[in-house]
Structure formats: C-alpha cells, structure tokens
C-alpha cells in the first residue's frame, strides 16, 4: 500500500461530501488526475489514427480539396487581391488555424455527451474531458502543418523568424476553442439540441473569418472582421507562415486575446456551476 507513490498521500485524506459544498480541492484534483487527461487524449488519438492509412489520407485529402475550392471561390470567382502571394497559399495558411479551431471547438463541444458513460460511472474533475479533446486537435494540427510547410516552400515562399511566434497563435486558437467549447459542452448536457449549434457556427464562421482571403487589402472591412476573435488568429498565423508577407493587424489581435480570456473565464464559470448536475441529467 504505502509502496505506491500516492498511497501515503491518499492515506491521510478525508473526503467530506456535503450538499452545495464547492469542492475546495478541485484544482488540486485536476492536477492529480493529469495522467487521466493524458490517457483520454491518447485514447482519442490512438483510435483516430488506428486505421492509419485512412487517417493520414484523410488528413491530406480534406485540406487539399478545401484549398482548391476556396482558391477557386475567392481567388478566381471573387478575384480577391493576393498582393503577390500565390493564392493557394493564402488559403492554405488560413485553413491551418481554421482547422485547428474547428477540431478543437467541436471536439470540446461534444466531449461531455461523448463520454457520458464515464461521467455517470466515475468521479474525476469533469474539466478533464474537454481539456483532453484539445490534445487531439493539436496532434491533427501538427500533422497538417508538417504537410503544409513543404508546400509553402515549393510555392517559393520561405517562412522567416516569424515562425517562432507560431506557438503563441496556436495557443490563442486553442484558448478560444476551449472557452467556447466549455459553453457548448455544458449546455449540450442540458439541452441536447445545442449540438446543432456547433456545425452552424462553423459553417458561417468559415466565411466571416479571413480563411479564404487576406484582410490587409480590405481596409473598409478590416475593423468589422476584427470583431471576430478568430480573425486575429488567422491573420497572425498567416503572417507567421508566410514570413511576414502579410500584415499583422494588432487591433484584431487585441480583440482575439481579450475575447479568448473572456470566453475562458466565463466558460469555466458556467462549466463549474453546472458540473455537479452533469451525472444526474446526462
């Protein structure tokens, strides 16, 4: 018993269960259960890439088709300005952050209902579930990035020192997705039809986010677009990947950061407030 690393620390534990008692140890528990968070993420990644051939193929085909489509719609039909950058690259560098957000947001949003069998049978801080969904999105992103970088070089663009700032924008995309995902997943437990909201947001989002066009040649629209917190992320990541050949719009980035923290704080607040009922209604 005492040979196990946690045995001794658990041995002295006294757990008090009372009505309405906010569990004082919530954040400590979250840390203690970090291995479980890792394992849940690992499970999802493993299952996703188990059929390896199809999994990797899917990771290539989906963005490739989307790049071609959006290049056609925005570059050829709408004749959006490219500022000397090959249009497929504008789209590709927009799709990377967009896909990251999409998979993190929908993953976190579906996470509680998707793991309802765990929620009704074991105790652990529920925040782990949406949190581990982010890891899956991150792995998908890394795979896609590894495939996209050679394409960028083939098209004659070389990323510069700006690439070093990429992790910041990745973190920002994940924060926004997590904050919004917390709201959706907690609401979905109570109101199942909230799951229809996610695809709707994503369908609209791909057009009001500068995924298929660059904002620096649209001065009239730029401030309006910046109200969308993802604009700052997409602009920023495009700036990183194309070696500064597009502008970084700082006010837009400011909005992104502010909204990210607002969503995160309110998301955690709502999640924690409803968490104790999850097992009763899921």
């Amino acid at each position: 018993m005492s040979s196990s690393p946690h045995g001794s620390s658990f041995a002295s534990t006294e757990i008090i269960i009372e009505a309405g008692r906010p569990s004082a140890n919530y954040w400590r528990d979250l840390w203690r259960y970090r291995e479980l968070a890792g394992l849940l993420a690992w499970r999802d990644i493993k299952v996703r890439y188990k059929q390896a051939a199809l999994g990797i193929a899917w990771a290539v085909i989906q963005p490739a088709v989307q790049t071609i489509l959006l290049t056609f719609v925005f570059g050829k039909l709408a004749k959006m300005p490219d500022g000397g950058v090959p249009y497929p690259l504008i789209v590709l560098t927009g799709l990377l952050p967009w896909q990251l957000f999409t998979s993190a947001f929908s993953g976190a949003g579906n996470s509680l209902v998707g793991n309802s069998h765990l929620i009704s049978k074991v105790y652990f801080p529920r925040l782990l579930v949406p949190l581990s969904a982010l890891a899956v999105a991150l792995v998908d992103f890394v795979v896609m990035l590894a495939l996209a970088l050679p394409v960028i070089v083939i098209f004659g663009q070389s990323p510069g020192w700006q690439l070093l700032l990429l992790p910041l924008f990745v973190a920002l995309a994940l924060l926004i997705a997590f904050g919004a995902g917390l709201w959706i997943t907690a609401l979905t437990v109570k109101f199942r039809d909230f799951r229809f909201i996610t695809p709707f947001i994503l369908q609209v989002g791909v057009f009001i986010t500068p995924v298929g066009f660059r904002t620096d040649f649209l001065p009239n629209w730029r401030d309006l677009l910046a109200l969308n917190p993802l604009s700052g992320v997409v602009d920023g990541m495009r700036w990183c990947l194309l070696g500064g050949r597009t502008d970084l719009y700082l006010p837009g980035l400011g909005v992104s950061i502010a909204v990210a923290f607002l969503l995160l704080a309110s998301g955690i607040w709502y999640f924690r407030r409803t968490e104790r009922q999850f097992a009763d209604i899921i």
Partner: protein
Amino acid sequence: MSLPAIEVSGLSKRYVIEHESRHDSLRDTLHHAARKVWRRARWGTGFEKEEFWALRDLSFTVEPGEIVGVIGRNGAGKSTLLKILSRITEPTAGRVALRGRVASLLEVGTGFHPDLTGRENIFLNGAILGMTRLEIRGKFDEIVAFAEIEQFIDTPVKRYSSGMYVRLAFAVAAHLEPEILIVDEVLAVGDAQFQRKCVGKIKDVTRGDGRTVLLVSHNIATVANLCSRVLWLERGRLRSFGPTEQAAEAYLRQFSPEHSLAFATAALPRDQRHMGGLTIVSVELNAGEPLVNREAVSARIHFKTSKALTDVSFGLGFANTDGTRLITVDSDFHLERRDLPAGCTGYVELRLASLDLGPGTYCLDTGARSGEATPLDYLPSFGVTEVHPRSGAPAGFAFLGGGVRASAQWHWVTL
C-alpha cells in the same frame, strides 16, 4: 479507537420530476417556460412538481475493515447511495465523511474502448479507476495472469468473447488498492468459476490490510458469504443495519410471508444482463405441501416469453443459508432442450423421487437459459424454504443441521 471509515449523517437526495415537461431540447424549454408564465399569470400556479426522495435522512457508520452489504429492492436507493459516496452526484442534504483512499466500481470495465487492445485498456481503465501509471505497470503481469488472457493481450478487446472481456475488466478492478472500496453488483458477471475467484479476491483484499468494503448486491447469498453487517434500504430510508444472518433471513422472508412454498418472482430485482426474452413469473413447490426429507418433491416454474427462443432449459437450485449450492436440478441434464414461441406463458414441472436434504432452512435459486451459456433469466436466492423431518425419523435428527443427506444401501457385517 480510530475514527469510522465511512460516516454518513442525515443523507438525503431529492430528484424533482416536473410534470408536463420533458424538455430535452431548448425549444421545448422555451415553450414550457412561456406556458409556465402564462399559467402563473392566469391561475397563479406553475406546473406541478413532484418530488422524489431517492434517499431520506440516512445515517450510519462503517468501521475500518468492515465489509458491509447493501440490500434492497429496485428503487430503494442503493445506486443513489453509491453514486453519492463515489462523488458522482451530490446529495441534497446531509454529510458524508470518507476516511482513506476511495475507489468505486459501479460497473465493470468503465471506459473500455473496443478498438484498443487489452494492454491499452488496462492502462486506460486503471487510470479511470484512479491508479497511477506506475501502479498499473507494477501490477500489469498480475492483472493479465488473473484475467487468464495472456495470449490475447495485444488483441483489440472488440474481438474478445464476453467472458474474456469481463475477466479482464474485473482483473483491473481487483488490483486496485484502496482503503475504502465501493462495489455495485459487479460480482454478478462471468461464469461461476470466475465468480468464485472474484469473491475469493475480495475476501483476500479485505482480510489483509483491514480494508473497508461497501458492497451492493441483489444476490443475498453473496452478501451473506462476504459481509459481516447488512444495510437494508427501503424506499430511500434505512430499514435495518445489523448482523448479516438476521437481515438476510428477514430480507428473504419478506418475499414469501405466508408459507414459503410459493414465490412470486416476476417483480424481483434482477441483474439486467440476464433479461433475455423470458421471465420466470413464479415458482411453486410441491403443490403447496410441506417439503419432507427423503420424500418425493415437485416444483413448477411458471414463465412467460416475449420473443421466440430456441434450446431453452430451466434449472432450480437448493443452497444452504450461506449460499453454498447443495443440489442443482437442470432440465437439460439428461433431457432435451425445447424451443418456445414468442408471447407464450406456461410452466415446467420437475419431480425428484427423493429430496435428500436434511431438515433445515434452504435458499432457492432458479433460472432459464438458451443453449449452453445464454442466460435468459436468473433469480439468485429468490426465497427460503423449510425442509421438515420425516415422521418416524430418529429423535434429534431435526437438530443435526442441513446439508445433503444421501441414502445408501448399507451392508452390515459383524465378525
């Protein structure tokens, strides 16, 4: 003296069922809210709310090292109690103190993923149950050996037979080392041999380090076999909490209050896994005549079916009061199995030429299955019955206790 391991005081859990409202969707909720406002404005009342107390003012304490069984009919509050103790759901009122590391097993194989291998699932399930990776690694070989699945450890569990799956799941759980273990029904899985192994494992676990166990079971024989005290819940309240023998007998007797020769079994609690299109409705012993040692005995098992079934057989078992089976009578032991159509009712009758049980009290269990191993219905210890001494039996025979009394041909030689 040390503090109790589990201390429960005034524990209550209320569920509110609001009539006229099954709002699973936001639209329904908005619609409902609008109607509620309308009704309030018009009649000054909202919709009726029905309160349902799953647990009401429950208090008890469990000392370290005790094994306590929790019994009660369906809806008595057993699962709610376990869910509160496992911190899955919150109580409405009251307080619980748990002293020590807690692990709860509300089902076997929580979080098993069909696409992952046995090895991967051991780590995943172990972490879900609260083990660290280091602990799991240290016990890995033991777990695999206990589950008897060595050669399939790298096969995805979706290819496992249900027996292998259950064995692996229980093996992980059995190697938890909590100070307080909360178990729900999980013993009702696997074949009889594996069940015995599990019971043995639980006994070892508790005997060793003075671990505290709270065990919920429909199977009164398992409870009797393992537990020192029994907590009996009835409609959310504590009916009794005392030594096992008393509770077990009282619990069994309530199902057959008049004379213990006819048993209505349709509404008895069952393990969900055994519900398979056939329900044993009642069991009648000896057409209402007392059972007498070494005399012929008959039993009728009444059933109804809800779907067409093939190769059906029935069985009846007599066990002593601590749950050890003494006599097993299976209809397919030397006779054929039969097919049954959907929606039929009927009974099977068995006759034993001589009941070779000594006078005493016995537990009964019955079941039906299809083919070799598909359980259709099973009622563990659905009742107790009395076997009486034969008139003319030697005086004192009645006090010698139960058990199988075999009659034999005796040949005497004196030299």
